[in-house]
């Protein structure tokens, strides 16, 4: 341990027990490393001639050429299997900023931490080993619950995907657990043979296969990281509530921005189509009509998106039907009526029907897509409702297109 400040300033002392400072004990280094220290950069003379602002602080003694030191690592702990990064349990401004970006769907697939072994607190050979995914939101939600806990953390390479989705995609898997346990050399680090895995990783991990593959027994931990402390204090027993999923208002609302960001791609093509269809006229094409009628259709479309991707998730439990496409139709009726009221003075009765159907179909489709973000829809059920919902949505869109295009020819 290097809690000692003076020692920290001299740089890390690599113990001669381990050989690979990144925690990879592949066993390829035969000769033990000799202890060494990295000399500090000399103090900067404040009176030295200088242009521009003063130079910043010297590089951290933990930095290594070719690696990037992550801000959440506050120390490296010497262990029998090498230096293990110790992570902080409080989140900083850049973590919250990263969370906001990921929740907004910006570079979400690259928001990762390096897979491998980490620790929190002052763990010993009898401390618990917690397993998580390398999506940084997953990693952050775990470490922020671990203040005053001494534990090892094994981060699996789930390709930057959260535990639940990664288990579904089989990147949080039996094979990956075994691979990481072997790669870090866990059996030389801890005296026990137990791993605590989040319960939502269970679709991808077969506990008896893990035991067979690496000798470690899987203990299924709580679903939510915020219960992990109580779980550990209980001696590895989860209370019933820790094992049951929830889908609260807050849990639903944070998903909305990503839902909206997934819709932006088709939206551009749809808007173009709306403007082109709106401009078709007896004079072949009317730019004026494209703008004015295209504007009405655009508003009806966006109100439909709002209804299906925002209103439906928000009031999900209070919409009576179980099928998401029906929930979407209900919300879409409201958004369609709103669109009609906005343009009541400018549109014909046929256009009224069109805007209503368009808004309704869009809302129904967007709501149906929200099934993928919920923790309670079965694939058999989703497929069943899609076989009912998609034909209805297609018919609604076709009718509205035909009606919309024929209006200028009927006038």
């Amino acid at each position: 341990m290097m809690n000692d400040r003076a020692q920290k300033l001299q740089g890390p002392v690599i113990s001669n027990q381990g050989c690979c400072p990144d925690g990879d004990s592949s066993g390829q280094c035969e000769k033990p490393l000799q202890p060494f220290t990295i000399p500090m950069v000399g103090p900067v003379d404040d009176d030295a001639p200088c242009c521009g602002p003063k130079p910043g602080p010297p590089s951290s003694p933990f930095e290594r050429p070719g690696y990037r030191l992550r801000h959440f690592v506050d120390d490296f702990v010497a262990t029998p299997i090498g230096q293990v990064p110790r992570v902080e349990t409080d989140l900083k401004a850049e973590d919250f900023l990263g969370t906001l970006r990921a929740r907004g769907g910006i570079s979400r697939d690259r928001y990762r931490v390096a897979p491998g072994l980490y620790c929190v607190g002052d763990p010993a050979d009898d401390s618990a080993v917690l397993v998580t995914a390398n999506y940084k939101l997953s990693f952050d939600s775990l470490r922020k619950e671990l203040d005053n806990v001494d534990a090892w953390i094994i981060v699996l390479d789930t390709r930057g995907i959260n535990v639940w989705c990664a288990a579904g995609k089989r990147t949080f898997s039996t094979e990956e657990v075994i691979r990481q346990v072997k790669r870090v050399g866990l059996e030389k680090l801890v005296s026990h043979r137990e791993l605590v895995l989040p319960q939502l990783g269970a679709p991808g991990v077969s506990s008896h296969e893990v035991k067979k593959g690496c000798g470690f027994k899987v203990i299924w931990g709580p679903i939510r990281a915020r219960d992990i402390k109580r779980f550990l204090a209980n001696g590895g027993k989860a209370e019933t509530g820790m094992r049951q999923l929830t889908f609260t208002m807050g849990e639903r609302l944070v998903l909305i921005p990503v839902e909206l960001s997934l819709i932006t791609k088709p939206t551009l093509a749809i808007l173009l189509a709306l403007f082109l269809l709106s401009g078709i006229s007896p004079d072949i094409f009317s730019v004026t009509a494209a703008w004015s009628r295209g504007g009405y259709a655009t508003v009806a479309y966006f109100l439909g998106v709002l209804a299906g991707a925002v209103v439906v998730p928000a009031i999900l439990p209070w919409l009576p039907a179980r099928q998401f496409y029906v929930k979407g139709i209900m919300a879409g009726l409201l958004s369609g009526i709103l669109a009609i009221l906005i343009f009541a003075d400018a549109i014909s009765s046929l256009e009224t029907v069109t805007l209503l159907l368009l808004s309704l179909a869009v809302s129904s489709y967007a709501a149906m897509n929200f099934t993928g973000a919920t923790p309670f829809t079965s694939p058999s059920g989703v497929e069943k409702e899609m076989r009912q919902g998609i034909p209805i949505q297609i018919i609604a869109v076709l009718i509205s297109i035909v009606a919309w295009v024929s209006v200028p020819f009927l006038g």
Partner: protein
Amino acid sequence: MNEFRYLENVTTLKLDADACIGCGMCEVVCPHTVFEVAAKKAHIRDLGGCMECGACAANCPVQAINVTPGVGCASYIIQTWIKGKDAIIECC
């Protein structure tokens, strides 16, 4: 999770009571408390709550549980319709 119910009578979940050894692993891993162990045997107490995640089947040491696992995600299913069941799907 009682306020969220999805479609009933659609799940592919099957439990072979004869093969079950009552270890209780299915009860532990199921996030919707579909199983209940009583008298050394697992029972399905809430079939409609099943979302076919496959956690129970993956963790049953004697393969007493059968379910077609998958993700209940419309955009995923659309891609399987278009590209075929075995295609590599980018999703969610």
